[in-house]
């Protein structure tokens, strides 16, 4: 008797189950999103959207940050297994997807928020040939110097206001047995980043880059050469054998308290906060010999919509939310990086400080604007800078190699 009841119940439950799920699936639209970075961040942010839109289920999948993502995404978008929305790389690396016609162009009608975006930020999500926007930018990265407040205080130092002050501070740190700047030149992608942190103001920031693009100036211009020559000038304050020191070695130098400053991207703040909890972090923009330094920045990536999405209306509505201040705030506070959405003030005080500096003294990171060609000019110049640090070529020769590479596609 009791057994029969249990069996009947079991049958009822199993009979119910499939119909219940089909009903839910019919009611709900699932939007799949591909990206890179920690998946928990996506789940946290998209849960807010699901709360606001009960009919939508956002299913985020994160892949590794490495180049595998590009292959996975381009294969997925080429077939039928692709996502509805995806994180896209910025600038040159976006172009293969645009030219293959894999992405839906976005306009201000569908995604009203785009109209307020900074033109420089949007450029990184724009097709080079057709000038259409293909993504909603999500992050802006800035480049600056992160420093260890305790080490600075122990040596009686404050963030330098002038170039001479910076050199004097670096000398004092070195004399005290501390590596002034944790920087490794073995992983060559770091080289143009560090060159731009110390040199952008010297070559005149955006104005100079625009002149090079208009073919009015060359990188062999004395101002640019002087800018990248900063790497040679500061060499005594880098770790010994700097060209042989890897990026992770440099990170360890800073996080273990053996180095006082780390020139690098804003993403380092997250890394150091997590891996060196006892270090009190500060940031500053290095002053140039002529005066005020500039803080280079670039758009990190954007959300694009698959041209083959089966839920176009829902995907565009979601894209519109991704361009809103609500999402911008959510992104900044979850990921601790600048949102690309204009007018979003970060809660984090350190980020707030960077935001103020970037507003006043921001400039475009030059290398991302010149990362075209095969081999890309960025790869050519990174290698040239490495040879310069090794003392095999001069700053002028490194600049000439960049000119030569740029002339193959500009």
């Amino acid at each position, binding site marked *: 008797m009791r057994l029969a009841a249990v069996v009947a119940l079991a049958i009822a439950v199993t009979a119910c189950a499939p119909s219940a799920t089909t009903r839910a699936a019919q009611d709900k639209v699932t939007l799949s999103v591909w990206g890179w970075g920690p998946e928990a961040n996506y789940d946290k942010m998209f849960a807010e959207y699901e709360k606001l839109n009960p009919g939508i289920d956002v299913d985020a999948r994160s892949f590794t940050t490495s*180049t595998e993502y*590009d*292959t996975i995404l*381009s*294969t997925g*978008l*080429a077939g039928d297994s692709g996502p509805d929305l995806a994180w896209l*790389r910025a600038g*040159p*690396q976006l*172009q*293969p*997807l*645009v*030219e*293959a*016609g*894999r992405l839906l162009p976005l306009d201000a009608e569908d995604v009203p928020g785009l109209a307020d975006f900074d033109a420089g930020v949007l450029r990184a999500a724009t097709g080079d040939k057709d000038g259409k926007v293909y993504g909603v930018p999500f992050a802006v990265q800035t480049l600056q110097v992160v420093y260890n407040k305790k080490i600075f205080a122990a040596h009686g130092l404050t963030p330098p206001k002038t170039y001479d002050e910076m050199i004097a501070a670096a000398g004092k740190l070195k004399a005290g047995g501390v590596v002034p700047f944790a920087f490794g*030149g*073995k*992983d*060559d992608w770091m080289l143009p980043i560090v060159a731009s942190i110390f040199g952008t103001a010297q070559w005149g920031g955006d104005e100079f880059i625009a002149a090079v693009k208009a073919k009015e100036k060359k990188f062999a211009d004395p101002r640019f050469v002087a800018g990248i020559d900063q790497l040679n000038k500061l060499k005594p304050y880098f*770790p*010994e*054998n700097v*060209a*042989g*020191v*890897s990026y992770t*070695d440099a990170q*360890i*130098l800073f996080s273990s308290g053996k180095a006082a400053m780390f020139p690098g991207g804003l993403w380092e703040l997250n890394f150091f906060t997590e891996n060196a909890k006892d270090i009190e972090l500060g940031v500053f923009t290095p002053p140039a010999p002529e005066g005020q330094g500039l803080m280079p920045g670039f758009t990190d990536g954007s959300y694009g919509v698959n041209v083959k999405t089966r839920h176009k209306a829902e995907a565009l509505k979601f894209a519109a939310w991704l361009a809103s201040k609500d999402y911008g705030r959510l992104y900044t506070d979850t990921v601790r990086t600048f949102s690309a959405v204009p007018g979003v003030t970060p809660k984090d005080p350190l980020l707030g400080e960077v935001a103020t500096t970037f507003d006043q003294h921001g400039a475009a990171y030059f290398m991302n604007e010149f*990362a*075209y*060609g*095969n*081999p*890309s000019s960025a*790869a*050519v110049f*990174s*290698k040239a800078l*490495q*040879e310069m640090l*090794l003392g*095999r070529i001069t700053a002028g020769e490194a600049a000439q190699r960049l000119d*030569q*590479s740029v002339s*193959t596609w500009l």
Partner: protein
Amino acid sequence: MALGARRGSSYLFLIPALLLYSAFVVYPLFTGLTYSFFSWKGTLRDGFAGVDNYAGLLSGTFLDQLLPALGHNFLLFAGTMLVQNTLGLAFAVALSRVRRGKRALQTMFALPYLVNPLVIGYLWTLLLSPTFGPVNSLLKPLGLAMPWLGDPQTALPTVIVITTWQWVGFPMLLFSAALSGIPPEYGEAARTDGAGSWQVFWRITLPLLKPAMATVTILSFIGSMGTFALVYALGGSNGAPAGATDVLGLLFYRTAFASGDVNALGTSSALAVFMFTFIFGSTLLLERVLRRKA
């Protein structure tokens, strides 16, 4: 009757293997070849490009990468032959005289090649790190501390040493097997005639090892030409420092996956076809020369 029918049915048994081989080896090779004759927009095939992609490989900026990379492949091959295979032979000869624990020693020498080269590379970057590495801490008192992987002068030789460390067990095993196939009577007869042990090795053992040497040489050549994982782990995709450890495998990786070029698929397919033809052709040539001598 029987012979003809049997031959016919024996071909029948080849079909399953042939089908698998065609699907997984011949077909991909062939598609790679066809890809190289088209221009591409990302993953979308554009127009027929003729030999444009191949001409691109020979253009100034690309050739500037291709030739040094190929040169480094050859240096790796030379280094492997000189260091790894000579040591492998020495170990094999030494082990042939060991009476106890021979198997245990063979296993120990061969152990590193069971580990993935990426892991080996990562371990060695830690060991050789100029800031924290134990190798430099040991060498510092002797005044020999160096950024081994960070100086273009020492980077490639260091790669050769690490390759040797990983793979020396392989030629050792091959030479050991060949040595055990040489009848001891030859050596005994020579000794009776008054030959010293160096003479026995030089005049009898070494000539009889020629077939094994040919095999080791050809396998080393293929290994050196196709190397990727170890150099990637040691110097990244650009072959740091300053391209001193750049090889064809890395160049292909950069061209195919990291360039951001719209026609990356076309250029990289052409490069792949070039690499395949070059390695295949050279191997055939090497095989012919070595076998004739052996």
